[in-house]
């Protein structure tokens, strides 16, 4: 049989989404050094997120939060054989390029770090490695997927140990998807126009006097009409599938096995746990318990069993105690 080697492909959409599929049903844990990474791997994490500080510390210490030191990331990459992900700031495509060159397996364009671009998220199609992005609503999820995200997660409110925002964002996405099932093509078209408006806002800020038309480029070289068409294609797919067409995780505020199982029962494909593990009193046991809880999310006896004697969970913060301008989820659009 003759094999055409010109058909060899790297960095395709299929490879990016395929990578995300391999994470399904798993727990991805935030780690800040090699030792924590090994604990996470031993506990059964499907991947680790390499960070300099966990979200709870970023929140407590304030200041600008940036991509982690590459030395740290490489140290973590050397310590485990599971995939290693890392965060870059929203819109900071050079941090993303640096992470790609290090060989990081997936980039999280994350609101947990301080945004770098007031107008645009990264054009993720320009990269060979896959991206995960946060969302609070179906509009945000659709825009991120159109920009090339291979995986979506709820934003939740990172570093709080409080699940309410992740649950809120899951409802927002889930209910909007259900609604899509009931609306006709013309309403779907209206929605795609609405979703594309976020890109128009940036142009309106830069050129207050310019009328934005269908042919006006609004994101890189892409004209508004093209963006709207793209949104419509994705919305049609969501309507048919009755779920996001990419892997859809929960993140932001997961602190206990029951929190993790709650998000799984609400239809997420897996969970990210940030501060929840290494800010608790017994990280090894809690990490294992959360992995078990995600695996057996629909078995209450198992959730009860693994929740026993875990020691103190992270302290946590009430949402009312956080001023709006300090909410990480407000970052990105």
């Amino acid at each position, binding site marked *: 049989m003759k094999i055409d080697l010109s*058909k060899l492909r790297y960095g395709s959409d299929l490879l990016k989404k395929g990578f995300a599929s391999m994470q399904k049903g798993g727990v991805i844990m935030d780690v800040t050094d090699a030792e924590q990474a090994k604990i996470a791997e031993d506990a*059964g994490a499907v991947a680790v997120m390499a960070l300099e500080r966990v979200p709870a510390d970023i929140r407590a210490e304030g200041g600008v939060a940036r991509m982690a030191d590459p030395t740290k990331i490489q140290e973590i990459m050397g310590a485990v*054989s*599971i995939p290693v992900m890392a965060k870059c700031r929203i819109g900071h495509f050079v941090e993303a390029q640096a992470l790609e060159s290090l060989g990081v397996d997936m980039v999280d364009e994350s609101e947990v770090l301080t945004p770098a671009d007031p107008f645009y998220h990264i054009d993720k199609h320009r990269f060979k490695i896959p991206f995960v992005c946060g969302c609070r609503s179906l509009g945000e999820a659709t825009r991120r997927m159109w920009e090339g995200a291979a995986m979506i997660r709820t934003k939740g409110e990172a570093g709080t140990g409080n699940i309410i925002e992740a649950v809120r964002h899951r409802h927002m996405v889930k209910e909007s998807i259900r609604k899509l099932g009931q609306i006709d093509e013309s309403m779907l078209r209206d929605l795609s126009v609405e979703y594309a408006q976020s890109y128009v806002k940036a142009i309106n800020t830069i050129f207050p006097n310019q009328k934005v038309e269908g042919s006006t480029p609004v994101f890189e070289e892409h004209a508004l009409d093209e963006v709207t068409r793209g949104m419509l294609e994705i919305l049609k797919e969501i309507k048919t599938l009755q779920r996001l067409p990419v892997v859809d995780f929960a993140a932001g505020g997961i602190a206990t096995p029951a929190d993790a199982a709650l998000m799984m029962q609400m239809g997420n494909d897996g969970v990210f746990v940030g501060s929840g593990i290494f800010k608790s009193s017994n990280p090894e046991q809690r990490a294992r318990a959360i*992995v078990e809880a995600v695996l057996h999310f629909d078995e209450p006896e198992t959730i009860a069993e693994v929740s026993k004697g875990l020691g103190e969970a992270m302290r946590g913060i009430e949402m009312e105690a956080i001023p709006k301008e300090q909410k990480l989820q407000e970052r990105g659009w």
Partner: protein
Amino acid sequence: MPIKVGVIGMQGAVEEHIRMVERALKSMGKGGTTVPIRRPEQFLDCDALIIPGGESTTISKLLANSGLTYAIKKRYDEAEFPIMGACAGMILLAKKVIGDGKKIISLELMDMEVKRNAFGRQRESFETDLGVKNFDAPYRAVFIRAPVATRVWGKCEVLARFDQKIVMVKQDSCFALAYHPELTSDLRIHQYFLSFIE
């Protein structure tokens, strides 16, 4: 009689395999059901088993903790039955895992030595046309942080190579591939696997 295919449902591309098996069964005019397997008692009446791609370290730990590693090995020792392992599943079928192999608790059913992440990290993941023994047209193979078999012996037969590297093997009723047949719409691999069932 309708057949029952189990897909190890710990983590990874579980639904994708279930969908592919259902489509393949339909295309072959066979009746059957497909179920995810998370506990030993769910697997005992399955006619065939698929170990999907995912994270091999994670799947191996969860399989061992659940008692499935023991249950599968025991049943296979008593009477062979068809098992397909893809990517992480290939690693779990190997008698020897090199590199970071100590992290893996394998089923040790196939005479091969595998190397994990043999092509590199996600950046080096690729898709390619692959020549597969007894297939009359190339198969579009998707390799994601894929392993390779570095060595085979005994009854283990090589079915495909990419760039000289062994990426698909068969031994009795077990068969393993380094790539992901569940991520494309080509049903041939699943049809081939289902043809193993008596």
